[in-house]
């Protein structure tokens, strides 16, 4: 180009007059109003400072979903901190929560609907308008619905909770598909299945405010946990203020173990065995408490006396001596005895388990062992013990359901893979679709989920997504380009949680429900749009209406419908205050002791099980027929459960309010398990792969860190600066045997493939194991997430902060060499059972 002068530009602009006059190519002006230079426009004084608003809202960085306050200056979010009025968080917010600002403003964020222009994975995209995007979706979904095959539309989510989930399910029910996948099997499904088989649909919390003794298995409570901030601070307070003993069983010296009275190293997959050995000590030394036995079923006999139950438990755990447990688990018998005695003698005691305990072969049974230990010491749902989680019970609007409602059975794994996949087998969804025996969806839409990264064998899953012949149309709702959205046909720009409405319901740590909301702190960036705003628009275009017009409307209606919140001032109150709890509420304990009136019409006593049930509600023709077939012999009878007869008193006990058919007892003897060929009583079942390991093989375990979630935070630069590498933890002796020194580059491999990382040689892990955290090794997710500088000097590479990236490593992803393999009881992904070899690279 030659050197230009003003005359050149005059010529050019003279020629461009037509284009400018018509506004060709430009659909909108950025501005409204007109220049008022002399009038001065709006007055922003540099001396009076900026206007700062404090807006209550809620976090979403992890499932804990702390309520918090966002500070906004000039329309820009500048700070997040804990909500001081929250009875859950007590004003605290973790590092991940505070770095939420990075979610909104990271430079690689997707801000427009994008339609694939090249082949899947070719990274060629064309921006389209929301109108075009919605029309495109309708062109795929409406024909399926009109043809009576709504199930061929599959939706799968990673993090959807509370109103985000409620609006999605409402739309799907109105549309007619039940082909809805989640991610729970890679998270903790075995824990829930184990608990549901015992006390129904209740999930545990830990009453640290009142406890006198805490034992943790396989959970890093102080760093990362499903209810992290509410519980971690209470446990710290219990320990520091009241001197509560804390014992941590873990393969690694976590920061929780480091703060404990004792770190008890334990071999992978043996938590349940040690708990059973503790039960053995407690039963043999008569340290048990009788109180809870009457609510337990421990043998085939429903009518056993408490003494008979005590004898049965003692018999069942007899083989799990501390010496046997020591041999298998590596935990000294004396340590088992000491902690068992301490646990049983304490006035109250909490037993905590999580992924380290349950993400195994028979992981659900390990959780049952934890419940047994809690029950025989009367620490279930008692002050200071393992208690029932209490969350907010919101009411919300519901839309008319579709006349045709169908489900494609790709959610629960392959036939025979899992006996009780009550939380589904999400890691097998894509392999099931590829297999095709249960059918294939024509449209697969995922949101806040990265299936090609977070599941096992993720390269195989990516290859399924890449193949257009398997699923014809893929939609991804996301804020960041990632390992999965790279294969989508349509990318929808999601809002971040700091730009949207929700009501929230995460459980409290103090047994009193807290109702709280999330509200936008800033206007959604670009064209990003909340899914809860997309559903009503899609419904309208397909010819049906939802009960709400937007996510805000859904939250508004919910606030006005929910008792307590409504009387406090409803939506306006919640917008102003963010949180509400009933000031008169008492902590919820001992629900099982509630006495029930069984004089109602149709209520009869089942002689075999002692269950009071309502045969009319069960849909049985006559009382005689009901008595003839009995409670357990009547399909659907569990829905008509009323109470459990215990020593002549009708107690609410533990209702069978899940997929498990059971009486009202804690079903430690489980016909459900026995019928499927699993141990009826909590047992030790060795992990098959670990029994045939060669001498040079190791167990690979994965873990979380304090500053990252699995896949949603790598692009948050504050967090990635803190944690950007995940070396392999390896014991000194294990490393020495392989000639590996601290800091050496190592190969970790098995039949699925190989990853490389550096060795962190330490005594802080047991021998025979390599542990690698599972949140890094990103291939996409922006410059902070993947470490890949853009080849262009713009985008994230133009971010001046990029020059401040002082670290060279960006981690590795262990899921690449972990197979998708399910616990045969629960269908949970067996993250911790993988066998690998490790060598110096």
């Amino acid at each position, binding site marked *: 180009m030659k050197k230009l002068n003003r005359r050149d530009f005059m010529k050019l*602009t003279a020629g461009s007059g037509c284009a400018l006059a018509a506004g060709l190519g430009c659909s909108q002006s950025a501005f409204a109003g007109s220049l008022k*230079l002399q009038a001065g426009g709006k007055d922003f004084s540099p001396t009076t400072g900026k206007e700062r608003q404090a807006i209550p809202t809620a976090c979403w960085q992890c499932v804990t979903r702390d309520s918090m306050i966002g500070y906004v200056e000039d329309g820009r979010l500048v700070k997040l901190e804990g909500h001081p009025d929250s009875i859950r968080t007590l004003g605290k917010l973790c590092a991940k929560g505070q770095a939420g600002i990075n979610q909104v403003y990271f430079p690689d964020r997707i801000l427009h609907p994008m339609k694939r222009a090249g082949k899947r994975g070719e990274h060629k995209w064309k921006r389209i308008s929301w109108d075009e995007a919605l029309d495109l979706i309708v062109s795929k979904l409406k024909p399926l619905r009109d043809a009576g095959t709504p199930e061929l539309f599959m939706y799968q989510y990673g993090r959807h909770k509370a109103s985000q989930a409620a609006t999605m399910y409402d739309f799907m029910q109105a549309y007619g598909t039940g082909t809805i996948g989640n991610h729970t099997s890679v998270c903790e499904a075995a824990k829930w299945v184990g608990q549901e088989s015992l006390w129904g649909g209740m999930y545990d919390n830990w009453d640290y405010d009142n406890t006198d003794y805490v034992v943790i298995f396989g959970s890093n409570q102080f760093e990362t946990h499903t209810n992290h901030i509410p519980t971690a601070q209470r446990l710290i307070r219990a320990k520091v203020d009241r001197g509560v003993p804390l014992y941590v069983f873990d393969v690694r010296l976590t920061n929780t173990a480091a703060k404990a009275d004792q770190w008890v190293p334990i071999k992978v997959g043996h938590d349940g065995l040690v708990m059973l050995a503790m039960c053995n000590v407690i039963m043999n030394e008569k340290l048990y408490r009788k109180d809870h036995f009457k609510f337990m079923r421990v043998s085939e006999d429903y009518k056993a006396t408490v003494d008979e139950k005590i004898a049965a438990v003692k018999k069942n755990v007899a083989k799990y001596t501390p010496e046997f447990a020591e041999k298998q688990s590596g935990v000294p018998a004396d340590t088992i005895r000491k902690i068992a005695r301490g646990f049983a003698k304490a006035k109250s005691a909490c037993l905590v388990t999580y992924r380290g305990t349950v993400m195994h072969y028979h992981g659900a049974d390990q959780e049952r062992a934890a419940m047994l230990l809690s029950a025989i010491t009367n620490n279930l749902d008692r002050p200071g013990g393992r208690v029932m989680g209490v969350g907010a019970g919101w009411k919300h609007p519901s839309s008319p359901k579709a006349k045709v409602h169908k489900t494609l059975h790709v959610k629960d794994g392959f036939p025979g893979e899992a006996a009780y996949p009550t939380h589904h087998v999400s890691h097998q969804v894509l392999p099931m679709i590829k297999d095709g025996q249960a059918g294939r969806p024509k449209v697969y839409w995922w949101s806040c989920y990265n299936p090609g990264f977070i599941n096992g064998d993720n390269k195989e899953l990516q290859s399924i997504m890449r193949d257009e012949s398997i699923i014809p149309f893929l939609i991804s709702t996301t804020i960041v380009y990632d390992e999965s959205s790279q294969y989508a046909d349509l990318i929808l720009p999601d809002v971040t949680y700091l730009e949207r409405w929700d009501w929230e319901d995460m459980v409290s740590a103090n047994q009193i429900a807290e109702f709280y909301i999330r509200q936008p702190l800033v206007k959604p960036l670009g064209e990003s749009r909340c899914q809860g705003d997309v559903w009503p628009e899609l419904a309208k275009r397909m010819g049906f209406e939802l009960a709400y017009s937007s996510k805000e409307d859904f939250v508004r209606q919910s606030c006005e419908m929910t008792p307590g919140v409504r009387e406090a001032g409803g939506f306006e109150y919640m917008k102003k205050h963010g949180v509400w709890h009933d000031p008169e509420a008492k902590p919820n304990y001992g629900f099982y002791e509630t006495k029930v009136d069984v004089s109602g019409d149709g209520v009869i006593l089942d002689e075999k099980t002692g269950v009071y049930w309502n045969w009319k509600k069960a849909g049985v023709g006559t009382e005689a027929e009901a008595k003839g077939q009995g409670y357990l012999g009547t399909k659907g009878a569990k829905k008509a459960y009323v109470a459990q007869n215990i020593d002549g008193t009708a107690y609410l006990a533990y209702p069978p309010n899940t997929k498990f058919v059971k009486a009202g007892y804690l079903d430690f003897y489980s016909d459900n398990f026995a019928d499927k060929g699993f141990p009826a009583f909590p047992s030790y079942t060795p992990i098959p792969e670990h029994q045939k390991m060669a001498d040079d093989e190791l167990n690979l375990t994965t873990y979380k860190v304090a500053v990252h979630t699995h896949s949603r935070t790598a692009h948050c630069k504050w967090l990635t600066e803190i944690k950007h590498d995940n070396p392999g933890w390896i014991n000194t002796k294990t490393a020495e045997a392989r000639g590996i020194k601290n800091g050496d580059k190592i190969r970790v491999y098995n039949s699925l493939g190989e990853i490389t990382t550096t060795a962190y040689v330490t005594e802080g892990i047991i021998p025979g194991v390599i542990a690698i955290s599972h949140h890094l090794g990103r291939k996409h997710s922006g410059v902070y997430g993947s470490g890949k500088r853009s080849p262009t000097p713009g985008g994230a590479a133009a971010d001046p902060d990029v020059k401040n990236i002082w670290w060279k490593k960006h981690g590795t992803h262990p899921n690449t060499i972990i197979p998708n393999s399910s616990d045969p009881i629960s269908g949970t992904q067996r993250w911790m059972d993988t066998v690998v070899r490790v060598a110096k690279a």
Partner: protein
Amino acid sequence: MGTDWNKMADNAKTRSDMYGLLTLVFRQEPSEAFINELRGPRLSGAFSDMELDMGGSFYSEPVSAIADQLALEFSRLFIGPGRHISAHESIFTEVDGDSGGLWGARTVEVKKFIETTGLDYASQFTGLPDHISVELEFMQKLADWEADKWIEMDRISAEYCLSIQRMFLQQHILGWIPKFCDAVVAQADIPFYRELAELTKNFLKLEERSLIIDTAA
């Protein structure tokens, strides 16, 4: 010597139109109608005189094919997903340690600056306040307003408006758009955006010389 009011007005109008044209270039993917205008005899002649090489295919291929190519190139260069050249001032500049994010401290400065002039961001506008096309459109409006004042022979208002334009150029546009253009020139796959980025940079150089350097001298 008396003021040549018409010449001053024409000059301002030329500048306004030039900003307007560049606004269209960077706001969004070009429509077929806009491409037809660019390929028309008047503009193609001006491009030729300026030695702007848009590539032979720009003039010979069907307009729908060109629109499609440019839409892909626009997404690849400026939108993503993935690697792209973010067209926002806050990405390219640093203010008191705040840098590198969307809606940064610099975005707030731009927004405030623009709002002090009486303009508001249109409610239907979904871009960010410091997008390159917003800053260029703001300059278009200022220069257009200035032209009106020259026609009205209101020297005080016109010169005041020029001072606002100088401030905005110095405080914002010149600090990052030339760098942005360099990035586009380096990374463009087809001539269209490379040439128009060069044009933008050259135009801004001329603006700097005539509004800032020459005025100071």
